[in-house]
């Protein structure tokens, strides 16, 4: 299946990537080839097959709903590009 540069650009924007025109065109060509290759899965009849999303199936692991303080605020904020000692700081929204 072919994918147009416009589609690549749209998906990129939704994925919060801003690509220059030449890269959009390059990716469109490459992704088209990859999708062509992937289309071979259409040859297989899977109408009665349950999807397998993980090799570890039928497990629902739930922990107790208890508040725990595993890490300090200082640790959690330690890699933030911008913080004020209390919170992560981001550009103004409103």
């Amino acid at each position, binding site marked *: 299946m072919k*994918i147009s540069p416009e*589609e690549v650009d749209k*998906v990129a924007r939704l994925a919060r990537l801003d690509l220059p025109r030449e890269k959009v065109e390059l990716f469109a060509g490459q992704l088209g080839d*990859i999708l062509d290759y*992937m289309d071979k*899965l259409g040859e297989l009849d899977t109408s009665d097959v349950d999807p397998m999303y993980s090799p*570890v199936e039928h497990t629902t692991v739930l922990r107790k709903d208890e508040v725990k303080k595993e890490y300090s605020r200082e640790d959690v904020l330690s890699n933030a*590009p911008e913080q004020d000692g209390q919170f992560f700081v981001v*550009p103004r929204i409103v």
Partner: protein
Amino acid sequence: MSDLHTKTLSELREALLAREVTVEQVVRACLDRIEATEPEVHALISVQAEEALKQAREMDAAGPDPDKPLWGVPMVLKDLLATKGVTTTCASKILENFVPFYDATSVARLREAGAVCIAKANMDEFAMGSSTENSAFHTTLNPWDTDRVPGGSSGGSGATVAACQVPAALGTDTGGSIRLPASFCGIVGLKPTYGRVSRFGMVAYGSSLDQIGPMTRSVEDAARVLQVIAGHDPKDSTSVDCPVPDYLAALGRGNLDGVTIGLPEEYWGEGLDPEVENACRAAIAKAEELGAKTVPVSLKLTDYAIATYYIIAMAEASSNLSRFDGVRYGHRNRDAEELIDMYTRSRTEGFGDEVQRRIIMGAYVLSSGYYDAYYRKAAQVRRLLRRDFDKAFEQCDLIAGPVCPTVAFKAGDKADPLQMYLMDIFTISANLAGLPGMSLPVGLGADSKMPVGLQFMGRAFSEELMLGVGECLERNLEAMPVPEM
């Protein structure tokens, strides 16, 4: 001992416990070897020399601890395993300055076992690649021939062990990323069963495929490392709660009587480089000489594995990588005046080409119009692939075939992404099915003189058998040389 760096992990452990050498001597030997070989192989992203030497001196002062199975042994960690206080970059600009405040469970277990982590290994950015040419920092080269790649994405881990910088490293395998570099670099690489080793603290790529495993110069060493890192971890909901066998007890078998090895026709046919085929067939003949029975089996969906894998891996990657937004950690663009623009600029600047390509591809196959045609379809084919294996294992105990159709290729040779993806044809199925796989070096290619790896795949949680058979075969094959560097 001037040749300390060439010793295996098991040999070093013995010498350390007998106090024939000190931890400091061993660590210094590795650091000297790193200094001598690193300008050629570029296997590492960072070296923690001072911290390692300090730890070594403290350990020497306290004396050997026989209860710690890796006491005093230097190791290298792939740079996507979180290490407390040490940068963990994932070979990406976006995590260039990220310093975790916790250890990955596998790393914590190595430390508890007495291992000294001395460096972080280069890799393909976010583990996306089969050659270690996709690192944002530098390309790692193969210690056997520095015109060639070491394989990927754990190419740094493979090259550091092959170049004798350390006896053992941890890698991760999403579609063959331990086994391929192990094969290209002539070392042992084991991808455990999905769920055998905790993934907590590993930067996720394809969450339903990723698994951490050892890369070493002997099967016994792989068993020692796996013994330490295997086992249930409540911090990882996909970690399986079942007993860990004694892997070392499985070693030392005198023959392969009673072992049936399945040879999938799809792995031994057309497209296989003759020198790879010959080296692998010679190893199988040796296994037969040792008493193993071989039977033909079929993994008829092998041709569909790559398409299935890349749909699933890219979908999971696009989802996993959405967390990189420049807010809590990672690179942030400082010029953006509003939030969405900050996300976009930070991600665009931080991610390399291959990562961006996979995010877009993954988002596309998950999008509402294409979800059923691609992602759901791939998940259905995944189950069919697993059934293929279940059927094959009705006839045999292990499956054997080459790790890769060729030996290590030249750097820059696979510029087209699809060509690169096809390198993983024999390794990917084990990840999709969640089964263990191991690369065992079986000699050098007749023409290229480059290492060739034989792959074993087994039923879920059959690492014990795989290690036992691998070690018996290793002992009876000509010893693998060390590359001259």
